[in-house]
Structures are given as C-alpha cells and as structure tokens.
C-alpha cells in the first residue's frame, strides 16, 4: 500500500492497464478527498506536535469474487485511489504474483531509481575537507 500511495500520478493505472483489463467491482466507499494531520516530535525524538496537514484520497471496493481492496494515497487523484484499491484487492487473488511482477516491482524500481539519482546528486555536493600544509615549520 505504501508503494501505491507514493506512486507518481497515473503510473499505477498505466502499469495495470498494460497487463490486464480491469475486473468489475462495487464501491464500499467511493473515492473521497480529505486530509491527514502530519505529526512530528519536538527535537526529533521528544513529545509529538502537529506539523500541518497533507491531502489524501481514500476509497474501498469489493471485487465480484469478494476480495476487498482499500487505498489511502497522497494527493487528490480519485482515479489513482481507485486503481490503488483495485490492485490491493487483486493482490489477494490468484493474480498476486503476476501483479507483483508487472505492477509493484516496476513501480518500486522506478521509485528507487529516482531516489538513487537524488542521493547521487546530494553525494556530489558532499564536502571533502583537506588541510593545507603551512610553510612555517
């Protein structure tokens, strides 16, 4: 669910639709946009405080075969929330390993590549201190 929550907009739909045609489902909770209060800790480790909210979209659905899928994703895309819940439900069916290979793993790899590229740029800005020898001795 974490992967689906953080996926770039439209990415999960593109991966899923390239692999299967979507099964029928009924809504348990139609997509709904709301917020979550993000908390943090004073001094990073102390008492919690409210930092501010972030937008999220959630929904829940059930497949004709009975599996229930939930999604809570960052942002305001109802389409992304729908496809995330669908994947969550399908991961409980016989299709799980196929979808892991064709949807979740490429998603994870794509996000890992993006993270690695940022980390590599940050590493290039790391200071390598060296000491100048002074000619006084």
């Amino acid at each position, binding site marked *: 669910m974490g992967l689906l929550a953080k996926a770039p907009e439209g990415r999960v739909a593109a991966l899923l639709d390239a692999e299967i045609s979507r099964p029928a489902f009924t809504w348990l909770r139609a997509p709904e946009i709301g917020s979550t209060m993000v908390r943090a800790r*004073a001094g990073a480790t102390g008492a919690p405080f409210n930092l*501010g*909210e972030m937008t999220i979209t959630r929904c829940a659905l059930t497949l004709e075969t009975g599996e229930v899928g939930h999604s809570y994703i960052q942002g*305001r895309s109802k389409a992304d929330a729908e496809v995330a819940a669908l994947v969550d439900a399908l991961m409980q069916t016989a299709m799980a390993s196929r979808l892991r290979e064709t949807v979740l793993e490429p998603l994870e790899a794509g996000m890992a590549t993006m993270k690695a590229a*940022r980390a*590599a740029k940050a590493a290039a800005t790391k200071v390598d201190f060296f000491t100048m020898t002074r000619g006084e001795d």
Partner: protein
Amino acid sequence: MYVAVKGGERAIENAHAWLAEERRGNTDIAELSIAQIREQLSLAVNRVMAEGSLYDPDLAALAIKQARGDLIEAIFLIRAYRTTLPRFGASEPVDTGIMACDRRISATFKDLPGGQVLGPTFDYTHRLLDFKLAADGEVPKAPSRDAETGTVPHVTEFLNREGLIEEAPHDDTPPPDLTREPLEMPADRALRLQALTRADEGFTLGLAYSTQRGYGRNHAFVGELRIGSVPVEMDIPELGFAVEIGEVILTECETVNQFTGSKTKPPQFTRGYGLVFGQTERKAISMALVDRALRWEELGEDNVGAPAQDAEFVLYHADNIQATGFLEHIKLPHYVDFQSELELVRKLRREAGALQVQEAAE
C-alpha cells in the same frame, strides 16, 4: 440603528472581471501553467504549503497563480480550502532520523558521520543576477557521485553520548491542535511548535534576529540543518495497522545553545527545534531560535522582557492570515461606525465650546 446599504453588486462584479484580466496580463505572453509554477517557483510553493499548513504542491501552485504571486493571499486560499477537507486522522510522528537528505550541514562539527552535504543551496552563490536565465538556456546536468546507503544520524546524538546536551526524551502525550481548539495561553511546547511552523516567515525571522541582536540572547549555533523527504505513516482503522500514505519534504533545524545551568540543571547545551514543510531553511532556523527563546521558563532562565520570550505576543501575532484579516478589514465599509464617531466629536466640540463661553462669562 442598523442601515443596510446596497448597490455595490455591479461594481464588485466588474472589479472581479478586471482582476481576472489583470491576472492574465498581456495575452501576447504565454500563460503560466500550474506545473510550471510547481516546478520552477518551488520555494514559493513551499512557503505557501508551510504557512497554509497543507502539504499539496499542486494546490499551492494553483493558489499562487490565482493570487497573482501574492503569497499571503495564496496562503489565505489554502487555509480556506483546508477547512473544507474532512480529516481522516493523524499520522504517526514522522521520523526525521530516516530522512533521505538532499542537504545536511552542521555548523558545529566539521567532520561528522554522514558528512557535510550542501545540496541545492544559494549559500555560495555570488548573488549576481544571472542574465543567462533571461535567455532560454539549457541547464547543465548536475554531477553525481556514488552515495552511501543507510541513514544519517542526528548531530545531537553525538553530544548526547557525553551528556553535554539536554535530551528530548520520548513521550507520547497527544498534542493539542490549534486548528480544533482556539489557541490559549499558557501554550505548551507542542502548541507553540504547531503555531511557529505555520507562522509568517518574515515575522519569525524578525523575532529570531532580535534574539541574536540581544533581545533575549541565547547564542544559537546551527547544530544541524537537514532537508529531505520522510515517509508519512498512518493507522488505517479498516486494516488495524499503520501503512505509508505518502512522503513529505521537510526542513529540520536543531540549534545548540549556550546554557550556564540553573538551580536544577548542570551546565549543558540546550536545544531549539525548527521543522517546516518543504525546502524552507530560513524559516526553520528562525523557528528554532524562537522556540528556544520561548523555553526560558522551563529552563529556569530570566525573563528579560524580550519580545521573543513573550509567548502571548509571539503566538498571537505570528499568524499572517489572522493578522492580515484584521488589518485589511479596516479598509472595508465602516460608514455607520464612523458616523457615530463623527456625532461624538461634534458633541464634544459643542460641549467644549459651551464651557469656554461659560468660563469667559465668569
């Protein structure tokens, strides 16, 4: 008596139409897209998210466009939108110790685990206008280097090992929320931090600067400044456990401050804390200085009467939406109020005049 005045509708409608036209500007110039604002004015977007107290870069970019670049107006739009959202819950406290850092520096230790990582900073630029940006230019690719894996420890952890710095012991007291309950004094630290993280950047900067110049001096060093993304987890009631629901970019500043000790505490360094949405480092450093100044009472320091030590003054004036709302309302019609003032002054003048005539007669 209350007199309703009507007749402004047409003028208001026309003013809105002209506003829309002026917002668009010269139509020979290409229109700005929300994506362009989000990607190319990202620090403005970050400020609007931080002070609007809602993390959503696309909405912040839309607000900036709608507000014609007036950031306080944009923050106002975000605050207004925020109130329309149902709240699904609160996250677990984010762990900044596992931040994927774009930038991480310490002004107190040169060689520290994880190193000094400058990130995309203005710090060492010469502040000369770059006329290349006025022409359409290709941006050279930023160099990369193999990155170390693993998390970057907080600087305060090393000082803690020697007991030289106060600890921030783990605590799970549910925090008060000023978006649900009005902000009232005395405000505990959790409430102060919530108010400060969404406070006006300029006001917070001015107060922080005043502590450096001597009004409640606490001699801060930037122990650590880090910017990067952290995952946000929330308990999902339907599932019965916490899952990641997204990721936010945060700026965190921990100051290390002089402290000579008090009756109850040995001499050790104390800490101020700043944590703000987005890449917002001026604000995060300011927040840490003001947080530290406001802690005078719990640390047993003297109140020297400095503005930054006065929680009521700081917290009741730090919110730019409250401030601008009250300030700007005085330009709206006050015809009836003013009419009564006018009557009063005329009456006082008549009485003063009558008194003078009487005194002259005596």
